């Protein structure tokens, strides 16, 4: 959508021991798969594995998914486990949470997280707080998944990047994958997790292809992935913003020989602070990239933690790249101006490292 859609993601990485399994997997034979297919596979595998897992949401069954993520699932699992709901976000979000209290493991699809706001009380009060207010008597094993991010010219109310809003809430977990590989492994983990996990996808990425292992695998929540190794500047990103960051890193490498390291957070809560700090200690510079807003955004949180934990290692202020602090406009040129693209990220990196041509 913003000219930054990658067909393949570079496989460079640091050699952290804890990531060895993942590293081995990446070298196995991997078929190319669309992002939406990877999500579909993850759900199908988990539903086959555990009879308590079911999918519920608007148009997930007979319509085969508004964005075809659940294509074929009704035929495979039947209407008890792939369930169409009325347009009633508060109702079916609450239904999911109640079912989770009773021990089922629902996957609730929001057509987009912009619509989840209609049921916001359910997702920021009931989902994250019942465990706490009951003194740990109940667990809420539920996944809410769907689109988050500036839409394709849908104007302000339909274009929520919900990352920061949700990450703010203790009791929730927030996962934002950037590749089909990560999407599948993380969604499987999210479904097995005993807490409410918000799994944020991006419309512009559903058609992206990437390598996905044939063997069963899961990826841990709260573990960042170095999507591109480098020594000159750390760029912290996630989801679609990560693809923009990788494109910018590639461009700066080709034009100026800069070696930019891209840390893909993959999950915002829990946050892999250690990987960020480790990278910043190495490069001395830090730029954050997000498609949400800068004010009280995730980038602001990262900047705060970086200066708390490794101020002495920094050679410049942490710079944030985010959408402009305005409601999302409809007009395409205006929208492209508001949402950060490769150009803006590349400029920020240059500014961060005092780059002079």
């Amino acid at each position: 959508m913003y000219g930054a859609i990658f067909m393949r993601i570079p496989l460079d990485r640091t050699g952290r021991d804890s990531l060895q399994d993942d590293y081995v997997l990446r070298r196995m034979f991997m078929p190319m798969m669309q992002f939406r297919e990877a999500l579909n596979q993850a759900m199908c595998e988990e539903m086959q594995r555990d009879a308590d897992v079911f999918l519920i949401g608007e148009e997930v069954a007979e319509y085969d998914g508004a964005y075809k993520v659940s294509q074929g699932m009704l035929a495979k699992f039947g209407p008890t486990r792939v369930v169409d709901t009325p347009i009633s976000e508060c109702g079916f979000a609450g239904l999911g949470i109640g079912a989770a209290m009773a021990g089922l493991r629902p996957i609730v699809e929001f057509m987009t997280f912009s619509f989840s706001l209609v049921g916001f009380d359910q997702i920021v009060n009931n989902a994250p707080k019942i465990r706490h207010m009951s003194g740990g008597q109940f667990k809420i094993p539920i996944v809410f998944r769907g689109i988050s991010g500036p839409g394709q010219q849908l104007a302000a109310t339909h274009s929520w990047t919900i990352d920061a809003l949700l990450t703010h809430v203790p009791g929730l977990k927030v996962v934002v994958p950037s590749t089909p590989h990560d999407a599948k492994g993380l969604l499987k983990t999210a479904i097995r997790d005993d807490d409410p996990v918000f799994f944020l996808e991006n419309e512009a990425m559903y058609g992206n292809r990437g390598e996905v292992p044939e063997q069963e695998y899961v990826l841990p929540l709260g573990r960042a992935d170095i999507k591109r190794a480098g020594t000159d500047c750390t760029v912290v990103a996630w989801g679609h913003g990560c693809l923009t960051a990788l494109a910018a890193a590639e461009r700066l490498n080709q034009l100026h020989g800069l070696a930019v390291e891209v840390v893909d957070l993959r999950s915002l809560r829990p946050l892999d602070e250690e990987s960020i700090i480790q990278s910043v200690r190495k490069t001395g510079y830090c730029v954050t990239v997000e498609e949400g807003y800068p004010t009280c955004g995730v980038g602001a949180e990262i900047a705060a933690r970086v200066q708390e934990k490794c101020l002495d290692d920094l050679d410049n202020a942490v710079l944030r790249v985010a959408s402009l602090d305005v409601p999302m406009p409809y007009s395409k040129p205006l929208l492209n101006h508001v949402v950060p693209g490769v150009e803006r990220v590349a400029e920020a990196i240059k500014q961060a490292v005092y780059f002079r041509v």
Partner: protein
Amino acid sequence: MGKTKERQVTTMVEQSQRIEPSPSQLLDWYRQMTLIRQFELRCAQSYQQQKIGGFCHLYIGQEAVAVGSLAAARPSDYIITAYRDHGHAIARGTDIYPLFAELYGKSTGCSHGKGGSMHFFDRERNFFGGHAIVGAHIPLATGLGWAIKYRRQESVVFCYFGDGAMNQGAFHEALNLAGLFKLPIVFLAENNCYGMGTHVQRASAVTDLKLRTGDAYGIPGKDVDGMDCPAMYRMSQAAAEYCRGGNGSIFLEVKTYRYRGHSMSDPQKYRTKEELAQYQRYDPIGRLEKQLKDQGLLDEKKIDALHQAIHKQVEEAHHRAEQDPDPELDDVWRDIYANPFGPYRS
């Protein structure tokens, strides 16, 4: 609402009239209602002494609703209610000591001191809370009903809320889902005439609440005298059987009244003393007491002994809870995530 459903409900009501509680049931209900009232009076006292924090909503006057309806619930049934939850927890069988401990913010509380008055929970007894955002727990009840149906169990959900909750969007979305998916839920609207200080006539376009779910959501509605414990039992028993029979949900408008304010900090300027006195003439405990006396099951001596025993029970539980130490400060980090650093059942 279809003719078949109307017939089914008529049969249900007729059946309910034939249900006759046993003397031991009646005596037990009398004891339970008295326990709830004395518990609540002790709460009022402790609240005024500032031993209880937050909001505190007393159930005095409404005791017959929880006691009568929960007498019809099986242990495997799911119970969920709003913030005026003391009576439901006691009627469900939760010991009053952890309830006092909860009110005093102790980790020995039924919710480890994390929930307070409005958030009593008891997983063991399928008591799913204690929820304080008005109407927000009604969608949760649909999820409980969903789980029952998904697992093909015979259980039923008892979902309580006030008349005030019926004007929330969450109520309507939940009732639509319950009607659409034919979920086994007994919805009990405790109409105590006031949503906080606003009379139902100033809040609802249609004040005959039992009419609001039939045509709208295919969920038949009936009203029942919530100041009459045996009547509550009969209707709830029949309603639960209706749901167990795979007929979907049912809605009961329970006509009741709270004697105290909405919460402890309510000057009650919205109603007259005469109105309150009028309802107190139908006091659920007094009514059952009279019935038991008439049947020769209770006399003054037995009543005195019972009241004294309950008073002692309440004082002991209260005292014990009060003596418990405050929670460790590190407790704030507990009970937030089930899998703090990853799940991962693989």
